[in-house]
């Protein structure tokens, strides 16, 4: 038996040259001091392989048609044995891949590993980032729930702003002027054929470059990229072969990444599908998946005049800047200790993305469409109100004020919370604000009767903490007794 296997191997080796290609690859020397930090790229690649595997299995059940996509996802979730687990793996695998990719990029950037002579590796890596995010976006659309529907809507609206050829771009993206059955087919083709093909091609080039250039030496302050390159061959001689230690480190990191995905999937379960993709549901509160929350926030918070340039410009600008990184800073110091600007840029970028993502996740600018009928007036307040003020509290609900204004923490947060509004505005100001609007608030004078305004303002005047004085017009001198006048 053993001799049979050996014979078979030799037969294959003679024809394929296994030993000639694999052994040098496994034995290729890596510099001393290569640490666990060097294994994030492999972890990203492993998660990509996991995505391909789970993606193929999902595609065996998923139906890429607008009529049946949602149903087939529910079938996976509730009917097919372990279908839910598969969906969860694909979701957390995708999130993990994006995270590992960001970690890998950050590490390469901070250690200056992208510098001479490895600039091309970085630029191809930027391509990998773009395609991975493309996969994340198109994958989110295949979930074909309300998040997907509105996500495509926003994406198409952004694409439609392209100067000159906006309508054509939307046509290409959606397969028509509006989101319809063809839209899903297009995104399916992108997600399953186009992007994976590009991703794998770029990955092959990336890996070829990594092996060809060799793994970079850990940076030391005071040494330039050129010096490293000059000494690299000497350094490598004192290095060690990739197998076994380097391979072991990579494998442990990859295994941990996969384990985290498996445990999360089993523990938390699949994500979505959320509400059905029906544009008539006004209660929908769609959110993009987390890698795009920052764009969502940016779109919401941009002043209208900047929307077009910002939304259309930020992605090409970001990609251009990333491509320019090794071209501009491809020489000189590699150690982060000598590159404060690089460290500051990393901190700034991640802080910005973090804050924007947090805002996108909480989306205080979205009205709470059921606030008016679902969020009660705080009980402690109700107990103290007069008949007029009770009617005012009802006007507050009936006219949907609660959709944008919270009281006692309940309600929308598009407008200011009203818990202390009577401390800020006096009677006349409250009336004016309700009737004429102002800031982002529409004028409600035409929607309210005189009685409704009177009761509403009476109620609003009760909204202040007991200890705080009500707002008053500073132009009118206080006349009440005990107001310490001169």
């Amino acid at each position: 038996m053993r001799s049979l296997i050996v014979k078979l191997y030799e037969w294959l080796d003679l024809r394929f040259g296994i030993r000639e290609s694999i052994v040098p690859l496994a034995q290729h020397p890596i510099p001393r001091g290569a640490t666990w930090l060097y294994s994030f790229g492999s972890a990203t690649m492993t998660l990509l392989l996991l995505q391909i595997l789970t993606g193929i299995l999902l595609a065996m059940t998923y139906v890429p048609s607008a009529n049946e996509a949602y149903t087939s996802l529910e079938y996976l979730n509730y009917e097919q044995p372990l279908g839910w687990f598969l969906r969860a793996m694909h979701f957390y695998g995708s999130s993990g891949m994006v995270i590992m990719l960001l970690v890998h990029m950050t590490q390469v950037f901070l250690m200056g590993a992208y510098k001479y002579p490895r600039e091309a590796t970085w630029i191809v890596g930027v391509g990998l980032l773009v395609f991975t995010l493309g996969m994340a976006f198109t994958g989110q659309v295949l979930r074909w729930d309300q998040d997907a529907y509105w996500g495509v809507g926003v994406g198409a609206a952004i694409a439609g702003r392209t100067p000159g050829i906006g309508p054509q771009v939307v046509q290409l993206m959606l397969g028509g002027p509006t989101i319809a059955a063809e839209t899903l087919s297009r995104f399916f083709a992108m997600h399953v054929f186009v992007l994976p093909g590009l991703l794998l091609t770029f990955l092959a080039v990336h890996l070829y470059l990594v092996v060809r250039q060799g793994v970079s030496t850990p940076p030391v302050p005071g040494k330039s990229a050129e010096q490293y390159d000059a000494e690299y061959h000497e350094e490598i001689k004192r290095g060690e072969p990739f197998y076994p230690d380097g391979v072991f480190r990579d494998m442990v990191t990859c295994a941990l990444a996969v384990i985290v995905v498996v445990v999360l999937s089993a523990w938390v379960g699949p994500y979505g599908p959320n509400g059905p993709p029906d544009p008539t549901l006004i209660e929908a509160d769609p959110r993009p998946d987390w890698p795009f929350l920052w764009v969502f926030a940016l779109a919401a918070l941009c002043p209208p005049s900047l929307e077009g340039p910002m939304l259309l410009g930020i992605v090409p600008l970001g990609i251009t800047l990333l491509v320019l990184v090794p071209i501009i800073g491809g020489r000189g110091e590699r150690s982060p200790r000598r590159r404060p600007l690089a460290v500051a840029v990393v901190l700034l970028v991640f802080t910005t993305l973090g804050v924007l993502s947090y805002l996108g996740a909480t989306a205080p600018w979205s009205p709470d469409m059921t606030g008016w009928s679902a969020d009660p007036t705080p009980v402690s307040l109700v107990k103290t109100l007069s008949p007029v003020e009770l009617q005012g509290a009802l006007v507050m609900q009936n006219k949907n004020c609660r959709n944008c204004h919270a009281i006692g923490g309940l309600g929308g947060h598009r407008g200011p919370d009203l818990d202390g509004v009577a401390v800020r505005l006096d009677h006349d100001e409250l009336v004016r604000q309700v009737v004429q609007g102002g800031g982002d608030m529409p004028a409600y004078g035409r929607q309210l009767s005189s009685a409704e305004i009177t009761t509403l303002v009476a109620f609003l005047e009760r909204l202040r903490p007991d200890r705080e004085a009500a707002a008053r017009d500073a132009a009118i001198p206080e006349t009440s007794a005990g107001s310490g006048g001169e």
Partner: protein
Amino acid sequence: MQRATRYRRSIRQLAAIVALGFFVGFAGCGRPNPADRPVRPRDVLEFDKLFAMNCAGCHGAGGTLGAAPPLADPLFLAIASKESLHDTISQGRSGTLMPAFAIEQGGTLTPEQINVLIDGIKQHWSAAPDHSLPPDLPAYAAAVDGPAGDALRGEQVFSRACANCHGEDGRGGENAGDIRASAFLALTSQQFLRRIVITGRPELGMPDYRRLQGPPDSTLSPQDIDDVVALLLAWRKQALSLAASERREADRSIAGQPEASDLPGSRHARID
């Protein structure tokens, strides 16, 4: 040799983590529960959810202690028939802030959902069988063919049964607020006033028509109820006509301004 031992140990640790992962996996606590499926708002048929989404905002989280009159009130549920609840929910109460909820009225609830709400309200909050409500309860709606209430008699009833809290003239007293304010009366209907007179707002300290805490003679008879509601309606009429004349006055003083009331579908609002 040392290296081999290290590998073996690491691999054993990893295997343990994998085994744990699989254990958690097959325990399947991440398995989605079909009960958590997203449901279209029109397909929701659980009373609790429907009430929380559509009614709690005004009537309070448990059907009581909201700004609007409580639904969790056994006396109210004893006098209000399912039909009247149905009409109120589907068509709203014109003149008040109760909106119409039926889809054909521009609302969001299907007939089925409205029935779930009515059954749920009755089932959850009606009086327990052993709870003693008097057998001869006043009618929920005023009799159409019966004798109308008399506002003059209503004044006597008011001073006997209501003035103690609401003040002799209804302008508010120590324990209760102003019920003559035109803004308040303008947003009420006859049915609303009648209901409050009968059931009170027990959760806010206003007693029902039986005045259980007061002297024995303070209970309101059906005639008393009709009369005091007539008084309130007279006040309401007064307040509304006064407001209308003030508004006309104000309109005349702003010559050349386009009339908001000329616009179709707009309710004129002016602040004096």
